[in-house]
């Protein structure tokens, strides 16, 4: 539906009807202190009773407000944009910091997990920056990033609104003082999710499966442990974020099933990049990009041998997990526990 159609709607349908269909319009009106508009008549009518001074304070008149509201509803209900369906992303190599050519190209599809390895400062963020702004040979690396196999128009790059890449790192915290349920509800509301309650439930259950220690829906997000926070963030990103690409920067080892966490994202049709030196995570990915001297040095396909080794790594990891749980429950560490 176009803004003009919404405008007609606002002119003819009662505000009650509009709010039933688009509950978020209530928030829009509240932004302009218009929460008490009469709901039985169309907004255009109701606005006539509003003191024009209030609208003026916001730099609006009644007509502007209707227009803004129509535009807002149009933008929200718009689903078909080019980036909504990312079926692949292709990285065409540029040059490293020494201006040596990278000579690589890699195409990644939703559901794939790619790990990024290399020392700090080697150029991981250069790669991420390129992906985030959809470099078209114009960034310092000279790389090209293609979406669905094609170059992106300049105008589309400016329309990204930061929605292409969702990020998750150790440094992230919840800053809002909300319970887990309120938090998920708020996110669902901003996504205008139609079956919100169902998805909130899914998110919550899944976060608990990933977290080492259980938490309830009434727990404040700010009181969650590091592992629990990460579990909630990952599950929320998997089910509710609209970004087709997810970048994970070193998730902590403690208190979260990190392999399950990244597979969950992949299963939800995300393209997952994991920047990690955790062998368990790195080998769980399909390929790994090795960064050196500010460039992509090589791309390694996880071999059969490596996948076999994954089993042994898992065992080591499980031992550590057991040790941790024993400590937590007040038990002692015996030599038995260390046996593979």
């Amino acid at each position, binding site marked *: 539906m176009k803004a003009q159609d919404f405008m007609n709607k606002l002119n003819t349908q009662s505000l009650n009807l509009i709010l039933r269909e688009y509950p978020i319009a209530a928030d829009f009106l509240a*932004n302009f202190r218009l929460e008490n508009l009469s709901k039985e008549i169309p907004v255009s009518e109701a606005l006539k009773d509003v003191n024009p001074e209030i609208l003026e*304070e916001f*730099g609006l008149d009644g007509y502007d407000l209707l227009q803004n509201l129509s535009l*807002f509803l149009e933008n929200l209900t718009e689903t078909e944009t080019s980036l909504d369906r990312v079926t692949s992303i292709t990285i065409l190599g540029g040059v490293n910091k020494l201006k040596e050519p990278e000579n690589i190209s890699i195409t990644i599809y939703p559901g794939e997990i790619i790990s990024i390895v290399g020392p700090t400062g080697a150029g991981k963020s250069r790669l991420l920056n390129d992906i985030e702004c959809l470099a078209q040979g114009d960034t310092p690396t000279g790389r090209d990033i293609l979406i669905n196999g094609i170059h992106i128009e300049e105008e589309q790059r400016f329309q*990204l609104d930061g929605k292409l890449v*969702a*990020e998750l790192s150790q*440094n992230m915290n919840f800053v809002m003082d909300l319970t887990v349920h309120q938090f998920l509800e708020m996110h669902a509301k901003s996504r205008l999710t139609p079956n919100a309650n169902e998805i909130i439930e899914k998110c919550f259950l899944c976060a608990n499966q990933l977290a080492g220690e259980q938490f309830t829906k009434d727990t404040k997000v700010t009181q969650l442990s590091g592992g629990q926070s990460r579990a909630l*963030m990952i599950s929320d990103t998997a089910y509710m974020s609209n970004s087709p690409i997810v970048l994970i920067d070193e998730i902590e080892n403690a208190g979260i099933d990190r392999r399950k966490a990244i597979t969950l994202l992949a299963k939800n049709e995300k393209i997952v990049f994991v920047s990690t030196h955790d062998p368990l995570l790195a080998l769980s990915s399909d390929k790994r990009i090795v960064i050196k001297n500010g460039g992509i040095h090589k791309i390694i396909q996880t071999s059969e041998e490596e996948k076999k080794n994954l089993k042994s790594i898992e065992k080591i990891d499980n031992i550590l997990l057991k040790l941790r749980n024993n400590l937590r429950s007040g038990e002692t560490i015996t030599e038995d526990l260390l046996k593979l």
Partner: protein
Amino acid sequence: MKLVTVAGPPSSGKTSVIIKLAQCLDIPKKSIGVVKFDCLTSFDNISYEEAGISIKTGFSGKICPDHFFVSNIENALQWGIESDFEILITESAGLCNRCSPYIKGVLSICVIDNLSGINTPRKIGPMLKFADIVVVTKGDIVSQAEREVFAFNVKQVNTSAKIMFVNGITGQGVFLLGKYIQQTKDILSLKDSKLRFTMPSSVCSYCTGETRIGESYQMGMMKKMEF
């Protein structure tokens, strides 16, 4: 010369964003100038000087910072042209959330940070509403969900704005902003240009130095609350 106006609440990261922007623009440092409009004191000039960027700072003192901005902007432009800058950036702190030092036809950027609270975009008003680009900073320390809800709330107030997430420390995200700025038209004069929104009106007795409390001292534009 290109002109860009940057506004945003105190400590939202305006200076960091501008410095990172200057570093990523493909032009010599000496062809970028910044005019900082502040109220009482400012230490940003040190950061700009360290970054090798020409800076002029003005203090509005007891005058409304926005009025101060508009009465000095033409001279600022003149300074920029005489200094042979390619880009002149003005930076002003929005103190009452009512400020919007934006001019029609001049690229306007509002900088706000994710830490300021999820509902802040809904409260800022004209400074956010009339901006062409909303730069959101400090996204690296809050959750993805909070970033998304924050961006959504920005869209509620300014549907047509472009939102760019910029990390003021690493400069991540600043490339696209620079690219956008380079596309804007050159500004040679602001004579007869118009502000995007009226300035806060403040012509009451307290504006002129009255300190006494009481009905009989209140003159000019007054607004009374209902209790």
